[in-house]
């Protein structure tokens, strides 16, 4: 389950493997692993519809974004495997949210994209691993 980053105009990209980290229990959720090459950068990006509850994005246990609108924030990377977490709660009609990570300025890797139109649950707490 690996994805290759696409090449954006004017940007030199490196291979960005995303693997699924299996849960400890059968049937438990799996978590994507985003690998950032040594010396690389990562930007977490969030695209939302109308929000009445602020969503939160954390990295290594620290809040990176808490907002009601679209945001993008670079991560201050720490060595090893660190947890990127997010939580969304929706109460408005037509809600949407997408969260992704761009590594080294490349095409964002979508970690989660949900919407009312797709009949997704109206809330989400989830995690990914940033390996650097």
């Amino acid at each position, binding site marked *: 389950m690996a994805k290759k980053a696409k090449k954006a105009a004017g940007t030199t990209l490196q291979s960005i493997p995303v693997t699924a980290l299996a849960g400890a229990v059968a049937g438990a959720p799996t978590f994507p692993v985003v690998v950032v090459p040594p010396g690389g950068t990562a930007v977490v990006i969030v695209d939302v519809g109308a929000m009445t509850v602020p969503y939160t994005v954390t990295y290594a246990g620290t809040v990176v974004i808490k907002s009601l609108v679209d945001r993008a924030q670079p991560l201050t990377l720490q060595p090893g495997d*660190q947890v990127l977490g997010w939580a969304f709660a929706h109460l408005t009609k037509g809600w949407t949210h997408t969260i992704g990570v761009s590594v080294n300025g490349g095409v964002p890797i979508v970690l989660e994209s949900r919407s009312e139109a797709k009949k997704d649950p109206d809330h989400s707490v989830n995690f990914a691993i940033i390996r650097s």
Partner: protein
Amino acid sequence: MRRCLTIWLVTILVGATAAGAQPGRDVLLRSRWDLAVNTAARERGLSLSGGVITHSGGANATAAEKTEVYKAAVDRLLVDPMLRDFFRPDETLINKTTPPEESDWIKRLADSGAGEKGAKAVNAASTNPSAPKVAERSGFTDLVALALDSQNFVAADKAAVSLNLNAVALAGLNSKTLSAPAAYRRYDGLRRLGGTVTFGAKVPEKEITGLSGVPTADTLFDVFSWDVKVRAIGDRDPRAQRWYKVMLGDLGGLGEIAASLGAFVPISELGILTPVLNDTLGAAVQNVKLRLSKSLQVSVKAAGQHLTTEAGKNKYSFAVLGDQGFGDTDLTFNVLYSSTSDVSAAPASALFTVKTWSGAIAVNTLVAEDVLVTGRAIELSLNAKLEVPFDKSALPVEREKVWNVVGAVALPWGDAAKIPVSITFTSDPNNLKKEKYVSGHIGVSYDFGALKSLFKPQTK
């Protein structure tokens, strides 16, 4: 879980004093989590080894045991007075917009193919008033939502065309840059105002005059009607300022804690912690939705009906409309005064004015969930209406109080269909002409259309 959420809400309501993130919140949260999870494990005869929940002999605890410990630890965190600061509403978030320098990143994410911006759902159905209910709901937030999406200014069916005045007034006022609460607050006054104009409706004379005993009672007239509704008390829209504490504080704080906790357990345990956190946030969202939908909302309304093909019989009405929830039951109430001028009992006879006070009440509740269809309940409703003639001495015809009571049940069928059955009991049998079966003062209506699916071939 419900009890714990209630305790959590009470605790943070008591503790709220200021807003804003502070340095060291993550350090505080981690220490309180460590304490909570250690305590929860110890209470169950378990312990932690390298962050992993284990038995005293060192063997790994089962997934069920770990889940139980994490649930208890999360519940403990939500009522921890040391964490009250997380649940204080940060109203500065409302006025924040996306920094211009971040826009390019967001566009890139949207261009990656995952963007959902164009997939917004239609928010409400027709505003055509040609299907009146005994008691009218007080709200019009769906109309406002429609207006903000600049959709459905006009609704029509075979009987009439309605123009949504909210949509006209608020067209184009939506914002692509403001947060949802900020955009809502910007036009708060306009959003309290609603209205409709309807053309081409055909209404029987008795509906206009209130006189069902005259020979022309069922004569249809072409009517132009209008109404203006002002929300006086309450607001069930989650963007409204009265819900900031719940949205920004309670749910926003819970989201922040939930998103942080993943970093405080070993990565191998994330698969067990994540469902616990989702269950907790999901239950909190459901509780808040229920609280919104049950909150008191009262509107006042003025309306007029005018005949388009002849003079007279102008009808003006003034009403108070309210909604309040109690547990699993919804209560809707209306009080209305109407006056219809230039009415005559027979052609070329003296003209007079008909004045009426009326009250209506509707109670809706859900019962027997999962009995007929899994995940669905039977809907019970009771509607009652009383019309009291006012200034009867000025009328040349006899006019009595008219009341009717409608009991209805809607039985769930399949994934979405319903089988509605209603019984009407009224003091005036003239009100029963639309019922399918009538006996004396009682009328019965039903629609077994949903049963047709029984005889359709099933496809997989």
